C-alpha cells in the first residue's frame, strides 16, 4: 500500500492560497466588463466633405506614422515637398498645413486613439496643432 501523502498545516495553506488568489486576481475581477471601448476618430466637416484622405482609409489607419516619417525625411533632407498619392493627386507634405488643414480637431482625431494606445508622439512639441485657429 502506497504511503498516503499529507499536507501539513492544511488549514493555513488552503486559506493562504485563497487569500493570495483573491488578491492576485482582484484587478481582473475589478475591471471585468469595463474594458474601454476602442475610440473612433471624429472627422471634421471638411474631412467628411473630402471623402477620402490622401490614401485609402485602411492604409492611412495602418501606415500614417510611416507616411509622416517618410514625409519628414523627404521634406527636410531632400527638399522634395510634394507627395503624389496612388491616385496621382498632389499634396504638400506638411503635418500642420496639410493634415491638420482637414483634421483640425487634433484632440478628437489624433489624441483620442493615441491616448487609448498609450503612444506619445512628440510631433506637437514643435509642430503647431491648430493652424487655422487664429485666422
Amino acid at each position, binding site marked *: 500500500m502506497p504511503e498516503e501523502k499529507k499536507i501539513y498545516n492544511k488549514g493555513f495553506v488552503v486559506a493562504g492560497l485563497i487569500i493570495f488568489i483573491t488578491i492576485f486576481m482582484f484587478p481582473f475581477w475589478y475591471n471585468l466588463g469595463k474594458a474601454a471601448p476602442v475610440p473612433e476618430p471624429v472627422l471634421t466637416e471638411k474631412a467628411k466633405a473630402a471623402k477620402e484622405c490622401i490614401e485609402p482609409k*485602411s*492604409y492611412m*489607419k*495602418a*501606415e500614417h506614422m*510611416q*507616411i509622416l516619417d*517618410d514625409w*519628414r525625411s*523627404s521634406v*527636410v*533632407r*531632400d*527638399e*522634395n*515637398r*510634394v*507627395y*503624389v498619392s*496612388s491616385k496621382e493627386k*498632389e499634396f*504638400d*507634405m506638411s503635418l*500642420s*498645413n496639410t493634415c491638420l488643414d482637414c483634421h483640425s480637431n487634433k484632440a478628437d482625431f489624433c489624441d483620442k486613439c493615441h491616448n487609448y494606445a498609450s503612444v506619445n508622439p*512628440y510631433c506637437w*512639441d*514643435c*509642430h*503647431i496643432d*491648430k*493652424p*487655422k*485657429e*487664429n*485666422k
Partner: protein
Amino acid sequence: MENSRRTFLKIAGISALGLSAKPVFNAFAVSEEHGGKKEAKVLPKKGALTAKRWALVIDTTKFKSAKDLEPIIEACHKIHNIPVFENKRHEIKWIWEEEFKHAFPDLENEHINDRIKSLPFLVLCNQCQDAPCVRACPTKATFKQEDGIVAMDFHRCIGCRFCMAACPYGSRSFNFRDPRPFIKETNKKFPTRMKGVVEKCNFCSELLAEGKQPACVEASGGALIFGDLEDPESEVRKLLKSNYTIRRKTALGTGPSIYYIV
C-alpha cells in the same frame, strides 16, 4: 562518401518541399494593410527657386543706423517663431546686429573711419561652403543641402552643441528653455522648436520652395540682394563684380556666402 539512391531521393524531396514553402512565406509577408507599401512618389515643389549655391549680398551703404535694420530682423523673427528671452544667455538669434570690430575682428583697425565705426552690421548664418558645424554634428542633424544652404533637421538634433562650439560666427543658438511661451506672435504655418535643440537661420528654405525671396531680403527694400553665386548672370554676381565686398573671418577657410559691400 557513399550515396545511395535512397539518400538522394530523401534530399531531393526535402529540397522540393523547401522551395515550395517560399510562396507561402510571401503570402504571409504581404497583406493589404501591412507591408504592401507602394513606392511613394515625391516631387520638388513647382515654382521653387533653385540655385547651385545661394548667397546674400548686404549693401551696408544703404544703412544709416540700427533703426534701418529693425524691420529686417523683425520680419525674420516673426515668420520663424523666434522667442524673445529677457535673459541674454537664453537668447535665440537668427539675424542680428553687430559692431564692425566684432563682426570682422580680423579687419579691426584702430583708426577706422567714422561711418564704419558707428555702423551696425547685419549678421546671420554665413551658410558656409565648408561649414564647420556640419563637420562637427555627430548626428548629421546639420547638413548641407544641394543648393548650398546649411540646413538643420531638428528631429535629429540631440542638443550636444558641438556645432555651436564649431561655428566661428556665433550664428547658432541653443534652446535652454521651451521657447513656446516666449513667442510673441506665432506664425501658424511654421513650426516652433523645442527645448534642447540648436537653431539658426535657414536662408528661408520654406519660402524659396514657394518661389519667394527670403524674408530679410523682402523687408530690406533693396539693401539685401539674394541670388545664385554660381550663376555669372545673377544679380549677386554682378554686384560682386562692380563693388568691393568683404566676408567675415575668411582666413578660417569656411567660405562664407554672405558678402558685405562697405
